[in-house]
């Protein structure tokens, strides 16, 4: 078994047969992994809402209308209005923009930065690894929300700062995942063979390490996306996230939504549902992606 392992591993790591047309891939994915397809569909709906917000939203999300405060869902306002008379549906649609911005922004930034650190750590090993690991440990040992809280207090509130505040805790987590995946590659004898053959660091990293940490990286991203959206909601709930009057799902859930939970439940129900569905979608998709790529991946 031990002798077979490297060859098998190489075979597993070798690229698959060239994929057929995109459509075929999608159809195959949907048929084989229905859960993942549902997740992807949810994400797609969210993405469309964000892109076509101006077309889809019946009202301006920022206009106050005190004449129609706290109106239940009805003909003129399909999902009702909030405490300032703003249309809930419109704010929901525009809110997807903020959610995706914050979600993608922080996940991509945090994930990529962490991946770079993880690869460096795995590849170079030794002192570099030790130092980077300590650094990551320092940030990892602080609970997610605690670090984000501290960052928002320093940086200030607002969308850009929230993205930064969520990025920072993501970095060490990403580094950890990518490092363990990278380490597995590092151990492979063919890497040593490549070094012996005189291939430079960059070439080995880009041609061998990166493609093989791609899978865990992508899966990790989907998990991060969900976490980022949730973290934004928590920060907004604590008053430290995106600020009024911007439309954001987490923001819609705080303050008045909690107070009016019984007399005007639509204020909090729909944003809560939106967040849940979005995170649900990201995670379902990521889960199925993991199954498709390699269920043995330990993430």
């Amino acid at each position, binding site marked *: 078994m031990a002798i077979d392992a490297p060859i098998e591993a190489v075979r597993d790591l070798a690229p698959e047969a060239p994929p057929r047309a995109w459509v075929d891939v999608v159809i195959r994915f949907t048929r084989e992994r229905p859960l993942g397809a549902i997740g992807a569909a949810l994400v797609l709906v969210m993405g469309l809402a964000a892109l076509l917000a101006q077309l889809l939203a019946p009202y301006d999300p920022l206009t106050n209308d005190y004449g129609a405060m706290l109106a239940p869902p009805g003909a003129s306002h399909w999902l009702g209005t909030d405490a300032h008379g703003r249309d809930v549906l419109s704010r929901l649609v525009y809110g997807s923009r903020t959610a995706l911005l914050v979600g993608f922004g922080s996940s991509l930034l945090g994930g990529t930065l962490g991946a770079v650190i993880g690869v460096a750590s795995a590849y170079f090993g030794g002192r570099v690894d030790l130092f980077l690991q300590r650094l990551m440990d320092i940030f990892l040992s602080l609970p997610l929300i605690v670090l984000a809280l501290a960052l928002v207090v320093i940086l200030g509130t607002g969308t850009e700062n929230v993205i930064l505040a969520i990025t920072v805790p993501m970095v060490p987590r990403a580094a950890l995942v990518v490092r363990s995946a990278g380490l597995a590659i590092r151990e492979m004898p063919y890497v040593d063979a490549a070094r012996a053959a005189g291939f430079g660091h960059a070439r080995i990293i880009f041609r061998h390490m990166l493609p093989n940490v791609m899978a865990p990286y992508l899966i990790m991203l989907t998990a991060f996306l969900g976490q980022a959206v949730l973290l934004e909601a928590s920060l907004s709930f604590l*008053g430290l996230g995106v600020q009024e009057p911007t439309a954001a799902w987490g923001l819609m859930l705080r303050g008045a939504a909690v107070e*009016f939970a019984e007399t005007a439940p639509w204020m909090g129900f729909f944003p809560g549902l939106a967040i849940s569905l979005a995170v649900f979608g990201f995670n379902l998709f990521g889960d199925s992606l993991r199954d498709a790529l390699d269920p043995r991946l330990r993430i």
Partner: protein
Amino acid sequence: MKKLHPAGLLRTLGRAATVVALLTLIPVWAMAQQPRYGGELIFPVPSEPPSYDGHREETFGLIHPIAPHYNTLLRVDPTDPTGTKVIGDLAESWTITKDGLTYTFKLRKGVKFHDGSELTSKDVKASYDKIIFPPPGVGSSRKGQYRSVETIEALDPLTVRFRLKWPDASFRPLGLASPWNFIYKADVLAKDIHWYEKNVMGTGPFKFVEHVKGSHWVGKKNPDYWDKGKPYLDGYRALFITSSSAQVAAIRGERAYIQFRGFSPAERDSLKQALGDKITVQESAWDCILMVAINHEKKPFDDKRVRRALTLGLDRWEGSKALSRIAIVKEVAGVQVPGTPYATPPEELAKLAGYGSDINAARAEARRLLKEAGAEGLSFTFKNRGTPMPYEPVAIWMIDQWRQIGVTVKQEVIESAAYFTPLRKGDFEVAMDFQCGYIVEPDLDMYKFISVDKNPANYGRYVDRVLDDLYEKQARAADPEERKRLVRQFEKRLLDEEAHYLLTLQWHRIIPHLSKVKGWQITPSHYLNNQLDAVWLAE
């Protein structure tokens, strides 16, 4: 035997019946009014006191659990809804000389501290010396309001005399009836002046039992309280609960009975809906207000036309109707809480800029002023504090109102604790400011607005000698009518002529409590009426 006349008989019977009826009614009436003894009052407190010394702290989180352990020299009548009438607490009677410079108080006899020792004038003097003339290293947060006091003397064990440098109209309510001026024991203070920061020992209706940090505070009835027959409660329990939804849940689940700060309209409605008659709601204007600080050191805000435009653009009357449904604000007010002795009556208030009923005319005037000042298309950043209620809804409303006079405002919300730094440094253009008074008193409520070189808490950073002068004059006015006149002049200059500060809407205090809590009257201040001596629980 006398012959029994039928008419006479009837009359006698009638009288007898009336007497019997009255006799039976009296107990019924008496029982309805008679406070019931017993029970423990449980109430949530949103904030925990950092130390136990009332002379030093500023948070209501100290007053709510600790005030029942102490008495003050005078206090605000707990049955007065305006929270301005002063009655004696430890002082039985007092005389004031005609020139208003000497106050002599006769203390009650037989008042005992919780350790059994008797209260004398020495204790009152020592406590007030600590407040007015604190030794170095001792913090006294209200020292600045006693500039008029010259000396305090303990003439005999039951008489205290205060001598003032000038007649001070606010001395009685602000100075002596302040809920913060706990009377401590002189001997204890002499041994360790910091003792009361970590310990409780007073003369109040309740004795200290325990304080579990982050959890609760317990007090039990003082059987030797000087006010015989009081308190009615066996004790009280203050629960430290920060989240307001948890506080509401506590009252709704009947695990707590009353919260002494205030709830939002939505919370009141949900409690009413859930508990119906079991809930009694008391409401009052609140001695707290959100105002707009305009930094006079930044252009174009040094131009009073721009400031006037900003205040004219706010439709306070309509805003009050809308915001009072979702936030703890309501009354349209000037510098004094409506309904209190020095408040400006509504007809006169309506004459001030921004308080009129014709908003279209006001908006047109605002636009005209902006154009004239060369500030058309004005845009600025509004710094707001990251506390949801009521900062957020009021800001959302204001930004929308200013949009309607062509002013574009971007809001920058700063985390609650970091908020004071830019404010005090002057690092802002326009910002949200606020103030809470513990007693409705012009001296206290208007101090904020005097020139910045006299009062660093004037974040508008302006110097206005006319305003300073008016403040001093009203502080020394002996005649109440004269004082009212001066207060109105001050208000007019502050809000209308110069528009130095913009007042938004007065906060509105809503206390929904379990109907079985009796004997507590709401006042405009959440620092008042917390001794709990008159509170009882019906069953």
